[in-house]
C-alpha cells in the first residue's frame, strides 16, 4: 500500500525516428498522482499524454525509470502480475477502442461477463442503467461502426466504468461531444467519484472547464512535467512555458474552445 495511486520516478520514454534519431517524449519525468483525487493531465497535441497513460498500463515499455501503481512496479511486470495490476484500472482510450464485432450492449457487458459471476439478468440491468445515464438507450443493438464519434466515446466510457475500478484513466472523455453532453459527463464523473471514491486521471483538451474537476494539474510540455495543486497555482506560475500555456489555453475563452 502506498499513499499514491500512481508514481513516476525519472521516467524516460523516447521513440526511434525514421531518420534514425530519437524523439524524446518524457525526459526524466517524476510526479505522483494522489489516491481518491482527480488529476488532469494537460498539454499540447503530441506532447505524450496518451503515451503516459499507456506507460501506466504497461502497454508500452519505459526506456528507463520506474512507474509504481499503488506501490507496485509496472516496469518489468509480466503475465499474471501485469494482469493483476490492470484489474485496478478502468480505461477509456482516445479512440474508444470498442470491439467492432460486438454490439453496444455486448461491448459494455463484456467486462461483466468475463470478469464477474453476475447473472445475465443482473448484467442486463446494470448495463441498462449506465447506458441510460449516458443517453445511449435505444442504441444497444447497434455496432460501433453505426455510431457517431461522440456516441462511441460514451460507449467506451460506459464500458470503462463497469467494474468499479480503483483508478480511472480517461483519454479525452469529452472530445467530440457537444457542450451540454460534456457538462453531463463531468457531472457524472463527480457523482460516481463521490459514490465509489476512485482515483481519476483525465487527459483533456477541454480547458479550462475540466480544471473545475481537478485536484491536481499535470502539464506536459517538451518532455517535462510541471505539477500544480490548483488552477490558481497554474495561473500564478512564472515558468515561461506555463505562462505561455496559460495564455494560449485560458487567456481568451473563445480561443480555448477553438484551440484547446
Amino acid at each position: 500500500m502506498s499513499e499514491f495511486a500512481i508514481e513516476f520516478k525519472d521516467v524516460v520514454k523516447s521513440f526511434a525516428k525514421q531518420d534514425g534519431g530519437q524523439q524524446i517524449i518524457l525526459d526524466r519525468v517524476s510526479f505522483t498522482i494522489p489516491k481518491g483525487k482527480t488529476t488532469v493531465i494537460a498539454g499540447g497535441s503530441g506532447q505524450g499524454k496518451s503515451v503516459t497513460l499507456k506507460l501506466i498500463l504497461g502497454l508500452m515499455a519505459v526506456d528507463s525509470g520506474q512507474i509504481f501503481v499503488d506501490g507496485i512496479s509496472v516496469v518489468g511486470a509480466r503475465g499474471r502480475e501485469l494482469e493483476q495490476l490492470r484489474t485496478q484500472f478502468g480505461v477509456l482510450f482516445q479512440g474508444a477502442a470498442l470491439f467492432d464485432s460486438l454490439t453496444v450492449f455486448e461491448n459494455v457487458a463484456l467486462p461483466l461477463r468475463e470478469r464477474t459471476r453476475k447473472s445475465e439478468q443482473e448484467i442486463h440491468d446494470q448495463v441498462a442503467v449506465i447506458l441510460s445515464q449516458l443517453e445511449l438507450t435505444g442504441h444497444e443493438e447497434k455496432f460501433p461502426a453505426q455510431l457517431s464519434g461522440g456516441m462511441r466515446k460514451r460507449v467506451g466510457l460506459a464500458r470503462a466504468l463497469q467494474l468499479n475500478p480503483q483508478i480511472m484513466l480517461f483519454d479525452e472523455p469529452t472530445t467530440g461531444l457537444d457542450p451540454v453532453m460534456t457538462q453531463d459527463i463531468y457531472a457524472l464523473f463527480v457523482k460516481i467519484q463521490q459514490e465509489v471514491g476512485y482515483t481519476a486521471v483525465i487527459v483533456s483538451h477541454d480547458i479550462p472547464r475540466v480544471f473545475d474537476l481537478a485536484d491536481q494539474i499535470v502539464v506536459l510540455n517538451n518532455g517535462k512535467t510541471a505539477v500544480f495543486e490548483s488552477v490558481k497555482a497554474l495561473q500564478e506560475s512564472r515558468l515561461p512555458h506555463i505562462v505561455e500555456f496559460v495564455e494560449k489555453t485560458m487567456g481568451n475563452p473563445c480561443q480555448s474552445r477553438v484551440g484547446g
Partner: protein
Amino acid sequence: MLRNPVEKLGDAGLYVLQDMGRMGLYLLLAFKGVFRRPFRMAEFMRQMHFIGVGSMMVIFCTAASTGMVLGLQGYYSLHKFGAEGMLGSAVSLTLIMELGPVLTAIMVAGRAGSAMCAELGIMRISEQIDALECMAIDPFRYLISPKFLAALVSVPLLTALFDVVGIAGGYLAGVHLMGVNPGSYLEGMRSSVTNHDIRLGVIKSFVFALLVVWICTGRGYFVYQIRGAGFGAQSVSRVTTQAVVYSSIAVLIFDYLLTAVLL
C-alpha cells in the same frame, strides 16, 4: 547513407532471430490459452464454422478437379506401360499422402488464414487488443487459442473430405471417362494404401493446420513489430499477404521434411 553490406546482413539476421523468438513465445502462449478458464465454447464453435464449414465448398471444388486431373493424367502415364489397373492405387496414394494435406492447408490459408490475420491486425491497430489487456482479459484465451483449436480440429477433417472427394473424382475420370475397370480401381486402392500411409497424411494435416493458424494469426497480432509493414490499413494488408505467402511456403517446406523423415 550507404551501409556496409555486412552490417545489413547482420541486421537482417538479427531481425529474423527476433521474429522467430517472438513467434515461438506466441505459440507457447496460444497453447497456454487453450487451458485457461473459462473456455470460450461459443467462439470455438464460431471459428469451427468459419474455418471448417466455410471452407467446405472450396475444398470440394479443389478436390474434385484435382482428383479428376489425377485420374486423366495417371491414366495417360500408366497406359503407356499397360498398367491402367494401377490407377486407383496411384490416385489414392498421391491424394492421401501428399496433395490432400498440402492443398487443403493452402486453401485454408488463403481463405480463413488471411481473414484471421486481417481481423487480428485491425484489432491491434484500433487498440482493441490493448483494450482487452486493460480489462485483464487474456487476448490469447479470448481470441487466439479458440482459433488454434478450431484449426487443429477442422483442417484434418477438411483433409479427409479432400481425400474422399479427390478419390471419387479420380474414379469418375478414370473409370467413367477413360474406361478403366472399376473393380481394379477400387482393388488397387484397397491393396496399396496402408495404415502407415494414412497416418502420414493425418500427421501432415495436423502439422500444416498448426503452421497455417500460427503464422496467420501471429502476423496479424504482431503487425506493429513487422519490419517494413508500415502503419494503418496498409500495414494490415501487407502482413495479410505475408501471412498467406509464408504459411503456404512453410507448408511446402514441412511437406518435404515430413515426407523425408516419416515415409
